[in-house]
């Protein structure tokens, strides 16, 4: 594409438009509250608690996705079987379902009218209005992002490497842990970041399962409803800043394996 090509200028204009579209509201949000306001918000225990709750429930969702999503992602990347497309579509379902519907659906299973809810009640596990409930919801909405990202990562690794490892005497798990896992580590981390990022932004499903304890998005919503834009903005700024810092740090710290340099 040359600069004289009209299409080049169309692409540039569209790019600028998108940048403005994304950045303008965010910049406005971050610059609206005064520094004093921001400082004051930091002393608000409720705010700190809500942000911390958001961060660690999202982190928990990412860890759970890592533990139970990785084997599935590996199987999806390495095998072909009838109905694979269906399995993949089911995994993507949480992405397309409206968020409150997710909350309602989970409530339906967790309630006392459902056998699973009864078992959980017997084990005194409560999802309604609890941290466990928040983690379940966040895992539900974040898992597809993890699995898809990690599946792509596994697919990018030649199965021949595993084959050679097997022929040299490694068992299937030996080949996975010594070859595939170290090579896929970056995409696993990216998958966890994607999952956590999606989880931390969840509002619609969380508010149905658990208004209290309050995650940051719920708190921001409550402040907005109760006190108006001015009071919700500082909390939002802190949430955005914390998330940005965390995700940036993870991206930078992500080890790049030798031979896997990109």
């Amino acid at each position: 594409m040359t600069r004289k090509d009209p299409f080049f200028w169309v692409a540039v204009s569209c790019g600028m438009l998108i940048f403005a579209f994304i950045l303008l509201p965010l910049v406005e949000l971050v610059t609206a509250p005064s520094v004093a306001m921001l400082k004051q918000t930091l002393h608000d225990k409720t705010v700190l608690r809500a942000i911390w709750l958001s961060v660690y429930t999202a982190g928990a969702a990412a860890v759970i996705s890592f533990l139970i999503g990785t084997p599935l992602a590996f199987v999806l990347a390495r095998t072909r079987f009838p109905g694979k497309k269906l399995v993949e579509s089911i995994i993507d379902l949480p992405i397309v379902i409206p968020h409150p519907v997710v909350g309602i659906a989970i409530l339906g299973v967790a309630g006392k009218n459902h056998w699973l809810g009864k078992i959980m009640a017997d084990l005194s596990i409560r999802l309604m209005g609890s941290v466990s409930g928040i983690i379940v919801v966040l895992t539900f909405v974040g898992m597809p992002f993890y699995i898809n990202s990690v599946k792509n990562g596994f697919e990018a690794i030649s199965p021949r490497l595993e084959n050679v490892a097997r022929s040299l005497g490694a068992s299937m798990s030996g080949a996975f842990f010594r070859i595939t896992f170290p090579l896929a580590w970056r995409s696993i981390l990216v998958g966890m970041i994607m999952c956590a990022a999606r989880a931390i932004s969840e509002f619609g499903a969380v508010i149905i399962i658990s208004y209290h304890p309050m995650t940051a998005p719920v708190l921001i919503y409550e402040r907005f409803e109760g006190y108006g834009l001015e009071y919700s903005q500082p909390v939002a700024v802190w949430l955005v800043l914390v998330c940005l810092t965390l995700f940036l740090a993870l991206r930078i710290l992500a080890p790049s394996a030798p031979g896997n340099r990109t």
Partner: protein
Amino acid sequence: MIQIRNLTVDLGEFHLNNLSLTIHDHDFFVLMGPTGAGKTVLLDAIAGLVPVSGGSIVISGRDMTTSPPEKRGVGIMYQDYALFPHMTVSQNIRFGLRYHKIKPQRAATDFQNLTTELGIAGLLKRYPDTLSGGERQRVALARALIVAPQVILLDEPLSALDPGFREEIRLLLKRLHTHSAVTFLMVTHDFAEALALATRAAVIHNGQIQQTGQGMDIFHKPASRFVADFVGMKNIFPATFSGSSAVIENLKMVLAAPVSCPTGHIAIRPEDIMLSPAPTGLDDPDGTDGPDSAATGQNAFQGQITAIIDHGFIYELHVQAGEVVFKSHMSKAAMVDRALSTGKKTMVSFSPAAVHVF
């Protein structure tokens, strides 16, 4: 010994169809075939890397048909070498040691010897992406050989290398084979490689073995039209036989020995077909009669050059004699000497011994 009986593998696009093959201990067995013939599938099946839907694979008397790859004692080296990119050369080579009961001292000596013999002792701390193709290949060989497999499978080991390197690696493979007790099974689509390395060879096509034997035997005595074509016998014609003569189209030719069956094929290598200037004064415009073949003991026909194809070092000449087009190879120098060109009349001749019947 590897005994493969009626092996069937169906991977959709690639398949093996009731394939049987025996490879003896310490053979350097070369399996040849065109791309897509099922060569790599057969290797993967022997290594236990693809599901087998029928038949059996017995290695050293043990039925390995359903054994997992790590129990087979079969090493594999792929065309792209498949070195572990996150490990150094040294870590790559030592990868398999922990799974084999090799005494640490013995392992250290083997490591030393192998890396020295393969000329990679200076590369041990490097990562694969900093190595040349030839170096990667040596590392892959060392990695496979250090665990002392019974069989090593080589998937097109030479085709990804620069031509200059090929000769070197070919010699190296031959040396490694001679100096070790390992059975080598190599697949290639290059017939010349096979001739240079194989103690025994086979041709595979459409998931089935077409012919097995010594490389030179396959080269000189192909058993089917496909093999004849694969080994470069460009002149393959259906023929009818009577005694020790054969007729293709309307040309009658002498054979070295009588043939019992009435119909079949004849094949002649292009380098066995001689072209000489047409005898002067021969007034025979359709060129089918020529001198009496039986009388001269040579098969000779008058023909006309219809095409000259440049193959780099050599030319391929198509000469039409009657209804038959013979293909002959000629060096560039010879072409210039004889001032041959398209449309020129010429004599086509070949000895009865050059005519292969099947």
